[in-house]
């Protein structure tokens, strides 16, 4: 599933901690304001960024705010002033800034945020799952999930281009798994600064606070306009989808690495398809390889784009499968399935030949996800599919 690499690029890969690589990508994107508050496991990104600013390698204002609430507030202010703006957070920090996320999107400010996914308290836990990302599913931001360090770097650079597209103008979250991706040293190709500059020109916008052309941002929207404002935001977010793919395509032309909204791996003729997001897809692909070698018709579909949901692309990717095993890294407490599965089941409801589907929840709060989990899942979804049983989610790797 890994995107093809440009020929000349493969030689340039260096071993780099993914967090540091993301900070380098932000430098290459020439971000102008970084406002951030430290939280594990996001810290290495902002530490390295403040180092780059301190060394004069990145000409930016680093605003060391006193909370995540102020981090997002300062980002909104900076983006409203017309500056290219970046921040990063995780888990509890995200919850503290959550109020502002919804406002950043309605103000149509192209802030880019790296969200280093970590479980939400409680119990307090600093390790990886997707409960933080899922808690802000409806905040109106474009949301993507990275699988590898290279992808995290490339998505970071592309994110500014997507967010700042005058036909998009929306904030964007790049999700990456805490520790299992953020703290790993991976081979990463850092693009050439001049090429990035060509791909991503300096940010200029008329949508800003400007003495010459004063705008009022953040007006009160009463009952006579609120519905229309929300619809406009939904249309903007939904309408961003083809533009996101266009930026992915433009990126491929310059840098040789082609990304898609939904990735497929060995789905040709697959009877059973695993659906994943984020870095566990690497483990899942290895498991798929092993199962394929054993003659099992198994494939994998990975959502790179989470918001706007790539409805058509996803339907096409899973068409023809008999069994879908949808993986969630978070729970919806009090509901029979996790957030990703719930949405996919809703999307498939109107399909004539819908597959059997079961939701598997795993890897919560940093619980290890070995290859054997995916083999178990495939066995189990086949079994349930054959028996026609539709149940609630199944926890994989839980201690009884």
């Amino acid at each position, binding site marked *: 599933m890994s995107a093809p690499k440009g020929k000349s690029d493969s030689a340039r890969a260096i071993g780099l901690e993914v967090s540091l690589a993301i900070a380098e990508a932000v430098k290459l994107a020439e971000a102008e304001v970084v*406002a951030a508050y430290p939280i594990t496991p996001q810290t290495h990104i902002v530490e390295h960024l403040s180092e780059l600013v301190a060394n004069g390698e990145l000409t930016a204002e680093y605003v060391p705010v006193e909370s995540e609430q*102020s981090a997002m507030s300062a980002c*909104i202010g900076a983006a409203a002033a017309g500056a290219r703006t970046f921040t990063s957070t995780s888990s509890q920090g995200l919850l503290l800034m959550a109020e502002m996320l919804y406002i950043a999107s309605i103000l149509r400010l192209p802030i880019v945020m790296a969200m280093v996914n970590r479980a939400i308290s409680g119990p307090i836990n600093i390790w990886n799952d997707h409960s933080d990302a899922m808690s802000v599913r409806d905040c109106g931001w474009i949301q993507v999930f990275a699988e590898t360090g290279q992808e995290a770097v490339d998505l970071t650079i592309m994110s500014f281009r997507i967010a700042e597209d005058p036909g998009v103008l929306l904030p964007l979250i790049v999700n990456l798994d805490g520790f299992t991706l953020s703290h790993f040293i991976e081979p990463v190709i850092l693009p050439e600064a001049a090429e990035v500059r060509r791909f991503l020109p300096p940010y200029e916008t008329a949508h800003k606070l400007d003495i010459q052309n*004063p705008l009022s941002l953040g007006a009160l929207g009463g009952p006579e306009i609120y519905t229309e404002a929300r619809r406009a935001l939904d249309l903007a977010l939904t309408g961003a989808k083809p533009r996101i793919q266009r930026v992915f395509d433009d990126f491929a032309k310059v840098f040789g690495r082609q990304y898609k909204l939904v990735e497929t791996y060995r789905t040709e003729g697959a009877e059973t398809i695993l659906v994943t997001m984020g870095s566990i897809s690497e483990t899942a692909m290895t498991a798929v390889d092993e199962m394929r070698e054993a003659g099992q018709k198994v494939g994998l579909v990975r959502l790179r784009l989470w918001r706007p949901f790539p409805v058509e692309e996803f339907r096409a990717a899973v068409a023809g499968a008999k069994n879908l095993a949808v993986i969630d890294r978070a729970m919806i407490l009090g509901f029979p399935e996790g957030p990703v599965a719930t949405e996919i089941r809703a999307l498939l409801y109107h399909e004539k030949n819908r597959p059997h589907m079961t939701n598997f929840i795993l890897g919560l709060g940093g619980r290890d996800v070995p290859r054997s989990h995916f083999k178990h899942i495939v066995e189990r979804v086949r079994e349930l599919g054959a028996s026609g049983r539709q149940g609630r989610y199944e926890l994989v790797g839980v201690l009884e």
Partner: protein
Amino acid sequence: MKSAEVQFEKVTAKTFPKGPDSLAPGHRACQGCGEVLALRLMVKALGLDFMAVSATGCMEVCTSPFPQSAWRMPWIHVAFENAAAVAGGVDAGNVIRRRKGKMPDRRIPVVAFAGDGGTADIGLQALSGALERYHENLVYVCLDNEAYMNTGIQRSSATPFGASTTTSPAGKVSKGQNTWKKNMPAIAAAHNIPYVATASPAYHLDMMNKIRRAAAIPGPAYLHVYAPCPTGWRMKSELAVESARLAVKSRVFPLYEVIDGRYILNQKVDEPVPLGDYLKPQGRFRHLSEQDIALISERVNREYEHLAKLAETFSEPSF
């Protein structure tokens, strides 16, 4: 250069800014609102060459019902508790764009306006952070009407002792608010920022000059502005300016500045008017007995004397 030496054009009766108001007429403030009066005069003093940030509150709600806006300069409202952080972000954006040559090479004041709840309660952390980070062009204005008026007169930490509000009601066993008003200017001054001042719409030229000075001084500035609210204080709508004047003359709200740590008492009140003159026209204090008023008076006088001592002691810049 010492902040006190920073030059700015003084507002006098003769040089009072002419032309249309920076805050356009047609807003929906209550009749006799002392807060919108203070706001209008301050932005008139600033003209149009600045950027404004509003916290959620009366002044935001009454000036920006879409598709209308009373703000003739660039203006942004984000939320309730974060005006200082938003303003800090706007300033950071301006500073870097100026450094990169994307903006004219001159200072642009970024002025945040928030109420007492948005400042002394829910916005205190964001304000403290912004003052400490020393945003160069930040001016923060607290418009203090001494309760959450926008949501219906609930008590805040800036509500004075004895005031009856909808969440500190006077009753058979209660005198209303049972805590003393939080001293916000002192908290701001504790950040050792170059400029802290109190101001009142009853002393409008003084207030207009203070915001001009605040905008002219490099580094963050904090202005605490008395904002009488006839609706919330349950008093006649024509009494806003009068009550603001009585607040100063009774020592309830002394006018002073702290410039680089030097305290200046702008209005010495050697013979205060009786506190009852200030309290009695306001329905929120109607239930207070003469004994209660005597108790409050004692506290008011002690706080004033404390301030007078600060002015006497710190008569030179401290930093």
